[in-house]
């Protein structure tokens, strides 16, 4: 263990205080930058996709892991991002402007949802966000004049500043730059008042309020930031899919996002990245499993969602400390349903007293 001598307040603000951390992060960034020289196009595209999911994971993490608000319909924002961006591109809007509009629009929808959701607790919010997800998927399917409906929508080619990025490595670098930007920005958010107010709302709405945090507004902001980041991931995802159909942004995808952050570890940006790695490896493990299992089980439709659900349940139940296991507030939501608001006022932290006995 390294002992840190802090000599200035700026030492606290720095992200990477320890030398070991600095070296590790530098190594990962170098590896990511060098990836195009080492990987074939197929794997490079997969890596790019992983980065896109890491962005989406950070989006949901901001909401669920950092602010303690559940969303079981977050794929809707992925879809809103993908469709808005593709539609704008096909109308001839340049890439950067389209991306800006897409992110702003996602944020606006997120804040609208946040406005209603900020008045709900635990279970109700879970149901409401799930319903929102299903609604948006239906809209993608039915509004065929705009979205191409179930026929699908072709995603225009990737052209940035008039420069066609047709090669796998070019798209990969675009994904990488935006991923690093999101990680940097999200980390900034959580070392400044906005992010701290999110953490405060997660851990104690009561004292957050008494310290001057407008709890409702903080929740709306958290939904906005989360939706903006997830919408950005959606726009990048569109270029990987090259063809959009509503089913891609359904309940299963929302479940996958939830799985990512639960397995990765609640309440940390790194957890979202771990989660993205996990869900990227999962299909490989799954296809392997399908071969091993007897055909009657292995070929059953719905094995994937079942497994997703199962892993989420197992992780929640056993709460592994190893991977940033911080499920506390969320668990409290469900445990205390539907009395959350009331019980948060009465004596419940009796463990504090027994703490004295040890």
């Amino acid at each position: 263990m390294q002992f840190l001598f802090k000599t200035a307040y700026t030492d606290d603000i720095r992200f990477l205080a320890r030398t070991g951390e600095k070296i590790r992060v530098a190594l990962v960034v170098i590896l990511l930058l060098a990836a195009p020289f080492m990987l074939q196009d197929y794997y490079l595209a997969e890596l790019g996709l992983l980065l896109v999911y890491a962005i989406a994971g950070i989006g949901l993490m901001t909401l669920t892991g950092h602010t303690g608000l559940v969303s079981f319909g977050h794929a809707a924002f992925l879809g809103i991002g993908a469709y808005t961006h593709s539609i704008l591109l096909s109308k001839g809007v340049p890439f950067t402007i389209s991306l800006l509009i897409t992110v702003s629009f996602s944020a606006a929808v997120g804040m609208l949802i946040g406005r209603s959701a900020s008045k709900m607790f635990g279970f109700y919010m879970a149901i409401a966000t799930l319903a929102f997800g299903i609604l948006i998927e239906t809209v993608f399917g039915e509004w065929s004049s705009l979205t191409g409906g179930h026929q699908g929508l072709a995603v225009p080619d990737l052209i940035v500043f008039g420069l066609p990025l047709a090669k796998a490595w070019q798209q990969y670098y675009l994904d990488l730059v935006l991923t690093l930007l999101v990680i940097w920005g999200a980390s900034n958010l959580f070392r400044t008042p906005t992010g701290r107010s999110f953490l405060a709302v997660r851990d104690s709405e009561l004292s957050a309020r008494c310290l001057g945090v407008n709890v409702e507004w903080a929740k709306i902001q958290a939904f906005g930031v989360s939706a903006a980041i997830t919408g950005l991931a959606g726009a990048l995802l569109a270029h990987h899919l090259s063809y959009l159909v509503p089913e891609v942004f359904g309940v299963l995808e929302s479940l996958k996002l939830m799985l990512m952050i639960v397995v990765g570890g609640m309440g940390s940006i790194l957890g979202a990245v771990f989660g993205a790695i996990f869900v990227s490896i999962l299909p490989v493990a799954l296809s392997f499993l399908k071969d091993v299992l007897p055909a009657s089980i292995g070929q059953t439709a719905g094995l994937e969602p079942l497994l997703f659900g199962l892993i989420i349940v197992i992780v929640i139940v056993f709460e592994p400390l190893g991977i940033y296991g911080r499920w506390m507030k969320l668990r409290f939501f469900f445990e205390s349903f539907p009395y959350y608001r009331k019980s948060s006022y009465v004596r419940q932290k009796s463990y504090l007293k027994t703490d004295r006995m040890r």
Partner: protein
Amino acid sequence: MSVAKTLSVRNLSIEFGGVHAVEDISFDVAPGETFAIIGPNGAGKSTIFNLISRLYTPTAGTMHYGEQDLLRLPAHKIVHAGIGRTFQNIELFEHATVLQNLMVGRHSHMRANPFLNFAFLPGVRKSEIEHRRKVEDIIDFLEIAQYREQKISDLSYGARKNVELARALCTEPTLLLLDEPASGLNNEETDDVSFWLDDIKHDLGITIVMVEHDMNLVGQVADRVMAINNGRLLAIGTPDEVRNDVEVQRAYLGVAA
């Protein structure tokens, strides 16, 4: 720093489904005074704090802090009026560090703009460092430097109490509401609390309203005491006057003995 004002509560009442938790209570707390509220369990002491904090809205009565009508403020604006508080059950941000907790204590003095924060512009950095310095003063004052980087969930009960007091001080209050600052503490820790309360009063000039069961501590630090039972006022006066009040002895000390 702004100066302390008079807290005046008039005919304050609140009901919870027919239970009169607080009924027709009036009192004034002068600037710089240390005012204690005592009473048996369930008397309505914490409820008075929650009313002043605007977490509850009274069914009747008024509350003013100086010229400011507290009923006109939402809960999150109370701190801007200069009123800080702690909670009976300790409401810290469990999964954040001590420093993060204290920095949330500075929230009412900082600007929280998501765009500026996301980009961490130079102005944001400057403000972080400036407020970090203020936090450091409080850390020194309450001698909690050794916990700075620790998660609240890793702290002992006594340390948590100190951190919560520190966080309330970080808001730069002129009136501090302390809900049982010494409950669950051992004698030594209680002595520390008494010492700090003295400093908070004399060095920082902060008005203190505290709920406390420990009559020794109350006798040591309080200028005046208000005793309540079943939401009703029993007596108000110096610690000795209240201690010797017949009603109080029957309701409160009788129960405690």
